């Protein structure tokens, strides 16, 4: 039998996106030995790299701006936010933005060297605060800063499958090195989950517009759940209209932003205007979804963004696209779309693509979870955004809480000792993974099971939900768990076994999908991103609280938990 590789580190960070790298840099500067583990390669996978818009970055010297930020986020989140966390984001986003700039990020500036504030009002901000800083401008400077720091080691192509515990405290993790197929055991004094969201649970997702991997399969939620962490508001999923035709136009980003910039119109198949800006995200989402559901969509099942009435000339439009996307990227995309005149471009947008998951692991303002030794930051954590995420908040969230995780997990780690490895647990986990590669006669491929989960979630758990649809989804998911999961088989290859990674992901995805559906069934009201046809009204009397998910005896236990309020 192959030997285990044992890795000791003060601070283990799962996920090499914005939150993970920010935490790594902070903790390494405190003198801790940090290991960042990513299932892909940081900056070449994950969703931070895909960020197209900006970062909500209130002016800290202006109390009005801070207050506006606070109320905007709370209004979007339908008061389901943890108010302390919202306040922290508002106060610290500017400092994190300044960090990025110091490390080399290029935030869009005008001729006088001032930050350009991008279209703030379209989706319901009350003051102009969003700076334009696309994903690469966050990831590259972070990567360079990580590379400069000797205290950080980055393990790419390494998949963590479960967290290891010792007397109630998270003391490490087990996983596989995808490159060599070795089984790894990590000993850590503190562990941070910064694994991001779960957009790949849906067939249509802005995380994976062309069906290629972004990386957001929700493993983080599943491993936290199995480690006994409390997850809240898992039903709160933000959907976004996705530009899907012609192929590659999804690279343009947020359809509402494109419409606003070019003063374009959104038309149904009869040429009627569907909506006018400004409008908040959940409302325009439902309106587009309803229009398509009412049969007014195009044959491909979408609505059309029409540029012919734009007051801008074709040249101005081209320049604007080139400015926004970068000249080279615009050139490539234009080529892919057949070098048409931009005014004739008719982009089709579809109804509901999963965009962001607001729910997740419950954290406090120190990024602590309910499990000692386990910290969480970024999309995998929850409560900053409440029931609906305001624009520009996701990037602010990952940067602020990535840095905060280092600030609070660092001192915690310094006071801990390494625990003993629980070899029974390690062997059990190894057997679970090895079993996926056992040949069997009735085998199914992980890819086919993944497709089924995506279809179930897309058909029943999107913008408009009903008890009937959710119950059907739950029944089908349980069927998959019982009948298909045990039959999944990956080829028996040790080196870079893509199918084995898929298999492990699918086994986690079923858990996460079930958490989402059960949470959605339990919230008997409509709030923010969660719209139930059976209970169309917001019910502050009974439901101004979080739904919660926790693992007891390997079963999903649903409950509720109160909201943390700001101490006035």
């Amino acid at each position: 039998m192959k030997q285990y590789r044992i890795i000791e580190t003060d601070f283990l960070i799962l996920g090499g996106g914005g939150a993970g790298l920010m935490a790594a840099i902070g903790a390494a500067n405190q003198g801790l030995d940090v290991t960042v583990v990513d299932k892909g390669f940081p900056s070449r996978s994950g969703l931070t790299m895909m960020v197209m818009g900006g970062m909500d970055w209130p002016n800290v010297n202006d109390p009005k701006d801070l207050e506006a930020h606070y109320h905007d986020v709370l209004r979007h989140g339908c008061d389901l936010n943890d108010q302390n966390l919202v306040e922290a984001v508002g106060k610290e986003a500017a400092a994190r933005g300044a960090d990025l700039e110091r490390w080399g990020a290029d935030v869009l500036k005008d001729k006088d060297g001032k930050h350009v504030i991008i279209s703030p009002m379209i989706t319901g901000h009350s003051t102009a605060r969003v700076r334009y800083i696309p994903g690469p401008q966050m990831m590259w400077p972070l990567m360079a800063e990580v590379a400069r720091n000797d205290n950080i080691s980055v393990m790419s192509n390494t998949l963590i499958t479960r967290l290891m515990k010792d007397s109630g405290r998270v003391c490490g993790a087990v996983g596989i090195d995808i490159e060599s197929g070795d089984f790894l055991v990590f000993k850590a004094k503190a562990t941070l989950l910064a694994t991001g969201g779960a957009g790949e649970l849906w067939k249509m997702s802005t995380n994976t517009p062309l069906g290629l991997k972004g990386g957001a399969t929700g493993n983080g939620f599943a491993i936290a759940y199995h480690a006994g962490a409390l997850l809240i508001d898992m039903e709160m999923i933000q959907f976004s209209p996705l530009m899907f035709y012609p192929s590659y136009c999804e690279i343009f980003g947020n359809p509402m932003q494109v419409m606003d910039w070019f003063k374009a119109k959104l038309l149904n198949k009869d040429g009627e205007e569907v909506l006018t800006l400004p409008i908040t995200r959940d409302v325009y989402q439902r309106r587009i979804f309803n229009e398509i559901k009412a049969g007014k969509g195009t044959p491909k099942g979408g609505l059309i963004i029409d540029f012919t009435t734009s007051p801008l000339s074709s040249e101005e439009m081209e320049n604007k696209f080139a400015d926004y996307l970068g000249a080279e990227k615009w050139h490539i995309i234009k080529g892919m779309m057949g070098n048409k005149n931009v005014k004739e471009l008719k982009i089709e947008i579809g109804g509901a693509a999963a965009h962001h998951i607001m729910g997740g692991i419950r954290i406090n303002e120190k990024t602590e979870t309910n499990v000692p030794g386990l910290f969480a930051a970024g999309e995998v954590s929850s409560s900053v955004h409440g029931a609906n995420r305001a624009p520009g908040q996701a990037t602010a969230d990952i940067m602020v809480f990535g840095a905060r995780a280092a600030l609070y997990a660092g001192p915690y780690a310094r006071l801990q000792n390494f625990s003993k490895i629980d070899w029974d647990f390690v062997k059990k986990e190894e057997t679970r993974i090895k079993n996926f590669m056992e040949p069997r006669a009735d085998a199914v491929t992980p890819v086919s099971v993944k497709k089924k989960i995506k279809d179930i979630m897309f058909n029943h758990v999107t913008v408009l939900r009903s008890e009937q649809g959710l119950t059907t989804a739950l029944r089908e998911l349980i069927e998959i768990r019982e009948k298909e999961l045990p039959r999944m088989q990956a080829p028996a290859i040790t080196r870079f076994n893509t199918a084995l990674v898929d298999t492990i992901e699918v086994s986690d995805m079923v858990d996460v999908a079930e958490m989402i559906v059960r949470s959605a069934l339990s919230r008997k009201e409509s709030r923010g991103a969660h719209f139930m046809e059976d209970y169309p009204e917001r019910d502050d009397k009974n439901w101004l609280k979080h739904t919660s998910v926790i693992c007891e005896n390997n079963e999903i236990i649903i409950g509720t938990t109160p909201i943390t309020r700001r101490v006035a």
Partner: protein
Amino acid sequence: MSSNNVTLKVFRFNPDKDLTPAYKTYEIPYEEGMTVHIALKYLYENVDNTLAFKDSCCYSLKCYGCVVRVNGKEVRACATPVSAGQFYTIDPVSAHGVIRDLVVHAKFRMSTPSFKNLYSTVISKGLCVSCGSCTDACPHGFIRLKDDRPILTTMLRQDWCPVGDTLECGECVSACPVYQAE
């Protein structure tokens, strides 16, 4: 070969088992908007799930995670369209060690010279002969000639290449005749 199909000749190599690499040829149906990346994904999902390739995509044409050799040229798989009835040979990027099939090693390596060295040793001293070797050599298409001088087309500073300063690369430096002579 049907005109509605795309033929892919793919490099297959498992260093644990194989002494030499081999090519395997696949024929897959063409779909509108298909790129090399989507074709490889189709291959993995529907034809042969033992294929190892870099699946993840940043959808921003910026991460360079999917770089492969198509018909001998280093390209990003995500930004390279395929056409019906055509034949494509797909190899891993040759400069790096192969892990399996199309996946190659990528490691932090700060010690290699990058564009910033080129900038400080050659360009800023006025020694550049405008031969264009670095623009051809850059596997990421970051370098362009502007006023006969090489510049980084990324939005960042001139002394800071996003790939070369974090990952192993250094192609522009090894291609520069002046830098080699200096």
